[in-house]
């Protein structure tokens, strides 16, 4: 680890706008070693995810596709693509995003609009979330989360940005976030939308926004969230089911109850890999949003705790990168990307343990799902790149 005097740190007074990096040819920092411990944690999560996706989906895959490896194969391919992307981005220096940020956000919003258009967006399970390119499908909301983080890092670290003010500092990113939230909600995909909003607020917070500005906005947002919940029948049911899943165990409470059954059946050491009973189609989306429940059932508290510890480790390394980031942009970027992934992990585990209402957020690195996996790994690639320039 390289130690640098505090004076060398590129933070300056008068705002987080990064003067030194504001210009084209900077920085002239030497690239240090990558944070391989973060990489190891991610690889462990990824590996566990692939194993568990196979274990959880084999029966369902056999039933639906007559091929127990159906989901394993796809997840492995996506993991490879994701790792490839991660490697590329790991070696793609982060400051380039500054120039790309406006283009990235425009492209992302374009995709979000496009997916809503009939003929482009593919409908599955009543939601229009996918854009197809031949055999590949893309969920535009996944890159949108990342694009939002990159753009906000760029915006909030830009020279003279008045983060401490409300209308010129806090409100514009919130409006942008709400716009994306609204678009994503049209798919509908509340979970990803909430992730975008959550990331937006965390970035505003990180950037130094006044706490009471944020709290005020959140206070104003809560009625809106409840309105969103109660205007949509299935969301209302999910919410009520969260409050009392046993009121309708075969209806709206079904997912939560089956998830708790799985976790409860696991006990301390689990039923053993591949021995899940709940995966026999009792727990829907057992390989996606509820993969953590199958982990808890097959590997027990020990396995589930390992996942939590790995995410804790990820948080430590991620925020450590942010704290030691060479400049304001990279600090905000790494903070945002780390938070984006952790928000999803926290909410997902919260849902699976019945602590939060069902939102439909996948567990990063572990849940089956190509776009989510690829863009999460891409985010890790950016993080790893920043880690090379860390000062700590």
């Amino acid at each position, binding site marked *: 680890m390289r130690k640098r005097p505090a004076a060398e740190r590129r933070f300056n007074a008068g705002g*987080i706008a990064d003067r030194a990096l504001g210009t084209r040819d900077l920085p002239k920092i030497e690239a240090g070693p990558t944070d391989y411990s973060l990489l190891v944690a991610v690889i462990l999560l990824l590996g566990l995810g692939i194993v568990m996706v196979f274990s959880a989906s084999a*029966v369902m895959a056999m039933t639906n596709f*007559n091929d127990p490896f159906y989901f394993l194969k796809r997840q492995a391919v996506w993991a490879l693509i994701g790792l490839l992307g991660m490697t590329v981005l790991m070696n793609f220096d982060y400051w380039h995003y500054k120039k790309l940020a406006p283009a990235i956000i425009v492209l992302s919003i374009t995709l979000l609009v496009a997916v809503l258009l009939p003929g482009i967006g593919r409908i599955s399970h009543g939601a229009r979330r996918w854009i197809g390119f031949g055999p590949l499908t893309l969920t535009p909301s996944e890159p949108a989360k990342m694009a939002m983080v990159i753009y906000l890092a760029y915006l909030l670290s830009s020279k003279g940005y008045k983060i401490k003010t409300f209308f010129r500092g806090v409100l514009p990113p919130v409006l942008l976030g709400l716009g994306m939230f609204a678009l994503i909600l049209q798919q509908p995909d509340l979970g990803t939308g909430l992730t975008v909003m959550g990331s937006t607020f965390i970035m505003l*917070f990180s950037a130094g926004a006044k706490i009471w500005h944020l709290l005020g906005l959140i206070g104003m947002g809560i009625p809106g969230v409840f309105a969103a919940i109660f205007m949509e029948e299935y969301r209302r049911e999910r919410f009520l089911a969260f409050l009392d899943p046993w009121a309708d165990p075969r209806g709206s409470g079904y997912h939560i109850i089956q998830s708790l059954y799985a976790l409860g059946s696991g006990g301390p050491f689990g039923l053993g890999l591949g021995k899940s009973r709940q995966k026999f*189609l009792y727990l829907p989306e057992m390989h996606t949003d509820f993969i953590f429940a199958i982990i808890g059932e097959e590997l*027990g508290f020990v396995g589930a705790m390992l996942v939590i510890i790995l995410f804790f480790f990820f948080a430590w390394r991620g925020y450590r990168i942010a*704290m030691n980031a060479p400049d304001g942009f990279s600090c905000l970027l790494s903070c945002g990307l780390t938070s984006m992934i952790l928000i999803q992990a926290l909410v997902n585990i919260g849902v699976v*343990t019945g602590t939060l209402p069902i939102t439909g957020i996948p567990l990063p690195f572990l849940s089956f799902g190509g776009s989510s996996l690829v863009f999460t790994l891409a985010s890790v690639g950016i993080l790893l790149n920043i880690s090379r320039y860390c000062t700590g």
Partner: protein
Amino acid sequence: MPSSTGLDLRRRALLLFSVTSVCLFGLLIRLGYIQFVLGAELSEKALDARMQEVPVEARRGVIYDRKGRELAISATVDSVFAIPAQIKPKDLDRVALALSEVLGIPKDRLLVNLTKPVSFVWIKRKVDEDTAKRIRDLDLPGIGLTPETRRFYPKGNLACHVLGIVGIDNQGLEGIELVYDKALRGNPGKIVVEFDATGRKIPAATHRYIAPEDGCNLMLTVDEVIQFMVERELDKLMSTYSAKGACAVVMDPKTGEILALAARPGYDPNEYAKFPDEYRRNPVINDAFSPGSTFKPITAAAVLEEGLVTKVSRFYCGGSVKVPGATISCWSSGHGSQTFVDAVKNSCNVAFVNMGLRLGPDLFYKYVKAFGLTQVTGIDLPGEAMGIMLEPGNIKPVDLAVMSFGQTLTVTPIQLLSAISAIANDGVLMKPHLVKEIRGLDGTLIKEVKPEAVRRVISQETAKDLALAMEEVVKAGTGKQAYVPGYRIAGKTGTAQKSVGGKVVRDKHISSFVGFGPVDDPKVAMLIMVDEPQGAYYGGQVAAPAFGSIMKDVLSYMEVPPSSEEGREGDRLRGVGVPGAGMLGSTGAPQTKGPEEKGPEDTVEVPSVLNLTVEEAKRVAETAGLGLDVGDQSSGERIDPKSVIMEQIPPPGALVSKGTVIIGFRTLAGSAEAVGKVSVPDIRGKTIRAVADILGEIGLRLDVKGSGVARRQNPSPGTLVPRGTVIEVIFEEPGAEKPKTETPARE
């Protein structure tokens, strides 16, 4: 503006890390709570949710008669069920069609069941072995067979009103089956299979077999042979008098044990649905009748016990008697001056009106109550009724007068017989009961029903005096036709006009006879009632001969030694006739036979017809001047002439009068000395139904283990065993080793 945004930024990142850590830690705690604290409960619930149960019925206990002969047994049969979730929509039509063809159930109805949103549904219960095999061979998805037990009553309608019936779920619905349902039923077991959400069995899933706890066996107080004798006589009464109904109860007066209880019309409990529901009504227990003169012993007992009269008190009958408000006539034009005993013998209404008026209402009711006629006897049969009696508070002399000879009050036959039995039992009223023992499967005694004395009603002396008076009824009075040669029998005739809606109907009668014997040591008490006999209706004409006939058979069967010389002396002195042809199983109408003198030339020794075919046995019996009834004469059942007599009544060597009909029992697994040993047949490879038939035919009992076809048996084929031996047969599913596999449909 803060001076050090960079530090602020780092602090905020640290804060985010802290918040994230706290959240992760919170989730870890929550997870631990779910997995450790709630774990057991949740995992239990999860298992329950995944389990589907296929019920396995417990085998219903066997009902034996008092000598261990089977009256109700359970055999294993298969039932067809469906697990709708296992039937894929594309198979639905095919499955329904195939089932419809085999089971003969309309396809539409099957489709309704096959698509029910339940985990388990019966398609058809208790199908025969052939149907079960066809279903098994079809191997339809989601369709299975499970063994259930079916109740069989091997003796058909014998003792049907005692045994009762069971429903499709083997639940007792009537009779002993209902009263002892809990003991007989046992606890059902189940096969629990873990299924996934779409109903497929999970590989290596938990298959729990919770074995059923089989029901207990009952031993009745009823004796099958006595029951048979009684029912045969009732059948005869029904056909001779075209009666509307008839019933009879035989009881051991000293213990209250019911030796036989029968009613007509009867029904076959195996196929009870084919008979009108009212045939299942048990008049002995469920109906109250006007007892008529059979009630008179109660009045007589009361006056004797109270010392209001003695055996030698005299009564005058001028044909009628005036009481305040009415004139009551005797059935005869006048009995003149008569002793108490004569009054009983003559069944003189006038004398009994006198007795009743002497008693007064209080004492009258005291004795009616003491004899148990105002409450149920507590017999172990369901729906026991109670007679109706005027309220004791406001009865007028005319009411008391009429009640004294058994009119305007009603009692159930079981109440009446219990009361009369108290007289036979030296004045102690016993509680009638039908079950002697309840035994577990391994033969352990679970409950033994001991004779239960209700109370002493009258003194021993009164009882003896009354018995002697009632003996006169049979010796020389209205009940002569109930006479049994060689035995001292006490009895009382009864002829009551039926009343419909409170109005007496002229030509509808109930003829009855109640009595016991031998008087010196009563072994048997019996009541016979004939409802609306045509042609003749006096109890002495209709019921008494049947009583005598049954009594003779029963005493002979029970090997009751003939009564002391005194009794026979009495016969000779009086020159009382013997209704010989009315005895054991005669074919003619009893009342048409005149009395004939009993002489030594008429007595023959009963030959042995054991182990002979029916043909041979008939020849042997005819040669000896006797008849043979193997059940064909009384029931009209067709008998295979090659079937073998296993048991006979009376036993070989007994002295009987000529013309007596021997009762031959063909396949009863009776007392060991009466039956020989048989060779155990080889039943391997046969179905349960076939095995049950084969073993039943030669008097062996079957203990079914498993289901399917017989694989092993114990004892092995060829072993010589006594009849009645239990053969343990292990059945296995044909092709049970072949696992069922399902290939999920390719999309």
